[in-house]
């Protein structure tokens, strides 16, 4: 038996050593890859600041691949059509599209583990600000962004707050309440109706991932004026008031996470009213002909941005991508695919009709169209950057009870 044992142990040792070697090679391999990339990066010209398309040169990024993370569904489709495909065609890079549900957790985890696999992330501005404060995002130099076709520099061409330290805004979107018009005899018209399960029966859908939106909506439905929302939320009583309002429908809520879910919940009849991103509801209305309607009253407008994850191995390609995706034409193109407002003033006149449906004028579906934004407020991204953390904990405790 002794010899057998010896052989078995030798075999086991061989496997362990093999695994060790494999491990070592793997680590070493990725490191050498990085240094190679570094070298290449220094050779590469920075994207130029003139012209609508960055002069990256065709095929310059051939063989490179970028991981671009976004919210999935109709929204990601609009980005693939408007940004990814032309970028791939022009530079030869390959873009891997990954879906997530927002928040900064995954980015933080990757950065802290020094194992960054996401290159560019589509984020809500408040999250981008928070991530920037924590040093999780690369700084973006506004000077590298292309100017408008008429020569207006990017800084003036973007809407207010459109360019921050770490983020370039692509679109203005809106959190709205949508409902299935076939389910109600009297149609709901105002935000407060969302909390009125007696007169407007049925389940409600709310976004689970964050107290943001939910607290504001609750306060506005409770009668707080638009310009008082964040002042109110800054007090203990204000937060309690928002949660108390949410308590009134807590047992009638079905919680959603990805943006593709609210139209699905409406279509399945699981809810009769839900909060949603306006573009997703537009998509269901126009593309699938669903009898959904939007309550624009009390809508919450927010900016959605592109950011680059700190420590990405593809910094140069990522920077080129962000500059390319946020140029005037690209942002206008995106509006052919989804009802979100472009973040550049110069893109607005180029917005026309829905892709493949010349009778659908996109302008009236934009959250910032005058008839839609009468009672709208902007989400205060700085306020949320400071308060998200503590309200997240309260939110989790509230949800679990």
């Amino acid at each position: 038996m002794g010899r057998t044992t010896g052989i078995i142990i030798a075999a086991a040792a061989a496997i362990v050593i093999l695994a060790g070697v494999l491990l070592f090679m793997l680590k070493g391999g990725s490191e050498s890859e990085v240094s190679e990339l570094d070298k290449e990066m220094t050779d590469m010209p920075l994207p130029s600041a003139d012209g609508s398309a960055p002069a990256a040169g065709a095929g310059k990024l051939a063989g490179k691949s970028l991981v671009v993370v976004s919210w999935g569904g109709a929204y990601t489709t609009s980005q693939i059509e408007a940004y990814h495909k032309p970028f791939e065609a022009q530079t030869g890079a390959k873009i891997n599209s990954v879906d997530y549900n927002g928040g900064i957790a995954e980015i933080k985890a990757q950065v802290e583990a020094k194992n960054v696999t996401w290159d560019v992330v589509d984020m809500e501005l408040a999250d981008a600000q928070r991530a920037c404060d924590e040093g999780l995002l690369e700084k973006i130099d506004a000077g590298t962004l292309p100017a408008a076709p008429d020569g207006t520099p990017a800084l003036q061409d973007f809407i207010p707050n459109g360019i921050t330290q770490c983020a370039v805004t692509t679109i203005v979107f809106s959190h709205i309440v949508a409902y299935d018009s076939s389910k109600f005899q009297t149609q709901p018209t105002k935000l407060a109706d969302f909390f009125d399960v007696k007169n407007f029966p049925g389940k409600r859908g709310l976004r689970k991932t964050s107290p943001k939106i939910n607290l504001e909506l609750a306060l506005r439905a409770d009668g707080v004026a638009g310009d008082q929302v964040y002042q109110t939320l800054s007090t203990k009583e204000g937060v309690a008031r928002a949660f108390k309002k949410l308590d009134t429908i807590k047992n009638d809520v079905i919680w959603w996470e990805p943006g593709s879910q609210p139209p699905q919940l409406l279509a399945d009849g699981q809810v009769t009213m839900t909060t949603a991103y306006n573009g997703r509801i537009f998509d269901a209305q126009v593309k699938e002909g669903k009898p959904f309607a939007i309550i624009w009253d009390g809508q919450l407008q927010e900016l959605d941005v592109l950011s680059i994850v700190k420590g990405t191995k593809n910094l140069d390609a990522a920077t080129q991508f962000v500059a390319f995706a946020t140029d005037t034409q690209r942002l206008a193109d995106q509006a052919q695919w989804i009802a979100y407002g472009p973040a550049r003033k110069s893109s607005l006149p180029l917005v026309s009709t829905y892709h493949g449906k010349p009778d659908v004028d996109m302008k009236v579906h934009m959250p910032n169209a005058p008839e839609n934004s009468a009672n709208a407020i902007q989400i205060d991204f700085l306020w949320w950057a400071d308060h998200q953390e503590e309200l997240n904990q309260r939110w989790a405790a509230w949800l679990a009870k």
Partner: protein
Amino acid sequence: MGTAIATQESLAEQFKRSGKRARRGTFLLVLPLLAFLTLTFLLPIGNMLSRSIGDPTVAEVLPRTAAALRAWNGKGRPPFSAYSALADDLVRAEREGRIGKVATRMNFERAGMRSLIMKTARVASTFEPPYAQAFNAVDLQWSDPEVWGTLRHASATNTMGYYVSALDQTRTADGKWVPKPEEDQVYIMLFERTLWVAGLVTLLCFVLGYPLAYYIARQDDRTRNLLLILVLLPFWTSLLVRTTAWIALLQTNGIVNDGIALFGGDGARLELVHNMTGTLIAMTHILLPFMILPTYSVMLSVPPALTRAAISLGATPWTAFWRVYFPMTLPGAAAGGLLVFILALGYYITPALVGGRTGQLISNMIQFHMQTSLNWGLAAALGGILLAGVVVLYVIYARVIGLNRLRLG
């Protein structure tokens, strides 16, 4: 004679030595796996748990404040040196882009600290002595010794803070534990809920599983094997498949509700999934085979002659079952039940998918702190408490029931 003794001795020694060598050989067989598991499993868990008692963030980013506060006993007002040290540290941290990190960390200790620190750090470079007044001018919270007490606790590299938090407590400046405000309390409730769910699922598994095992054990060989395969089929089927099946069956537009609507029913749809009901049903279904199999295997070893003997001695069948058969099969049910209970304590996937808001267990909260709130220290503390419970039960299982009773199908 001398040589004879020497030979004898060396023989005994040889024997001992060869025994030792054999033991070493045996151990070497186990060693590769032990090393592998230590590296890939045990060490990582230990490493994670160590996060629950140590977090150097504050001490690293605010070193001068940490030093100044160490000299303070937490009673009364903090020393003036702490104010100037903090002003200095905040300015430097802001410049180095590390302020968000420390602000988030502080917020784990006390809700509201993040906004307080961020707000203060943005203007700290304009501070001039007297610093205490400068701080209070930004926010009156800085005049609260509790705020400084929190800073003092957090700047210690070794901290019980996360465990305090995990028990829904918070610490005053001088280190006393007091309950958190009611709206922030949640972990004790979740631990209780997890225990309650695990207990109820175990009970349900027993109520469903014991009679089935009893029935199967009494069939002839062929039927018995067929039935066992039917019990094993769900056991082998992917957990996600089984969970999907329950969602399909139980959702409001699902088959069960359609069936109820078909056979009368007032049109109201029952909510059977995405709540606690869903968690209980799906968990019972998934864990049931763990109860049936050990119970059944013990039942097989009970000779049927025993009950018959009891009956022929005048016992009613019920008494024979209850006084003779049941006590003999109880060890099997206990083995199954304890295993079900242990496994149920750590359940994550099923509650996450069918639990909705009210069917979430402690594991789901650990995942939340791991992946969403990124409060890794708290996740580790909650995990440590859960793991301690599981390990105690596991040791009981190993001691009382014996690991060789763990059979898979």
